[in-house]
């Protein structure tokens, strides 16, 4: 079956959504929005879906403060982040590439990330670029650490990383990202070459299950139509014809 990298990533993200939980999608996150909308139409019809600024999925009427306060009270079970850099400890960098005071690239800043990474129950990281410049040994600035000492109140943290090449899982024991699966047609070596830190693969190299025919039909039909209200360019380019 033919599918795009975005369709595969959305299907992988959808599997992480549990029925009945509260799932929130932040800014510039069309892929998580696609995955969550797929899950809500497939196995998680009772999930509460929040997609920032989507006319059908955003109940907050008093600015970002109302949403942040909601999250700070521990009401978000699943959230999504990306990063200019992501390292093997699950640290995210949204501040700057290079030295902070003389950066090569100034990134947009953390906004809610240094809070949501602690207060959401689980966070899935996503990047549409899986290269050694993104997946680095150690991030240049830590906007949000993957784990924290026991004196720091923390409800959640990283759960998975989803890229066009592979799925990584965060091991809370070792506090490191490990390889969970490689996408169909790829080898461990190919994913390792694209990753700037040594990949640990305690369960070997399973293949990520591809999207099913039902996944693709839902993504290319109702999910595309709903996403077009917020992400019109993504909705046109990410999916194959229904």
């Amino acid at each position, binding site marked *: 079956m033919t599918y795009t990298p975005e369709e595969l990533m959305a299907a992988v993200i959808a599997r992480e959504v549990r029925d009945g939980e509260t799932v929130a999608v932040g800014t510039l996150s069309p892929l998580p929005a696609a995955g969550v909308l797929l899950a809500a139409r497939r196995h998680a019809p009772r999930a509460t879906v929040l997609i920032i600024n989507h006319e059908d999925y955003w109940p907050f009427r*008093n*600015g970002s403060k109302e949403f942040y306060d909601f999250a700070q009270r521990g009401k978000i079970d699943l959230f999504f982040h990306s990063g200019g850099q992501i390292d093997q400890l699950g640290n995210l960098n949204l501040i700057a590439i290079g030295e902070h005071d003389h950066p090569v690239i100034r990134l947009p800043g953390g906004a809610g990330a240094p809070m949501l990474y602690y207060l959401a129950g689980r966070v899935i990281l996503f990047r549409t670029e899986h290269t050694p410049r993104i997946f680095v040994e150690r991030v240049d600035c830590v906007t949000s650490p993957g784990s924290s000492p026991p004196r720091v109140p923390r409800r959640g943290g990283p759960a998975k990383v989803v890229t066009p090449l592979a799925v990584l899982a965060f091991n809370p024991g070792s506090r490191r990202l490990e390889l969970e699966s490689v996408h169909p047609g790829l080898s461990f070596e190919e994913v390792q070459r694209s990753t700037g830190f040594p990949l640990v693969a305690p369960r070997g190299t399973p293949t990520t299950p591809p999207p099913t025919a039902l996944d693709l039909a839902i993504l290319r039909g109702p999910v595309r139509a709903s996403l077009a209200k917020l992400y019109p360019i993504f909705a046109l380019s990410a999916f194959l014809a229904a």
Partner: protein
Amino acid sequence: MGVPFLPVPGHVGSDYERLRPEFRLIADPYSGKDVLLVPAIAPDVSFLHALQADTEGNLLLDEKEDDCLLAQASRVVVASADEIVTPEALRRAPYGVRLSGIHVTALVHAPGGAHPTACRGRYGLDEAHIREYLRLAASDDSFRDYLQRYVFDLTDHGAYLGEAGLAALAP
């Protein structure tokens, strides 16, 4: 709120502690856990653009923004509004959050005042203009060209609206 600082959830263990020395780590006196404090931001002046304002100075602001917080943190608040309406019409508006005129120091009628960003119900994002801005803002020299065309060469706001393709909004 008028408080000197607030504790913020999360953040501890990130580089914010290193990069922002004014953020202070303390033991929460109630739980004993580590918590980061951030000092209050008290702007001398804030500038807001409202969807509508009424003749009493009350504002209708976009629901997605935190302008009400910003206004209530600032000593002086200068608001511009795309439309000036009656207090009755402002109360009936179906979208937006209201900010009492008691927080507003000065109000300017500025139709098209959100351009090149959008003003809900009035005009959308001007993507071509934002692309031009990004291109010209890449260097000081080219940014002078931008300022010359859209600021210095224009006699008044009506002329800007003409340049922006929003002449129909001019009062």
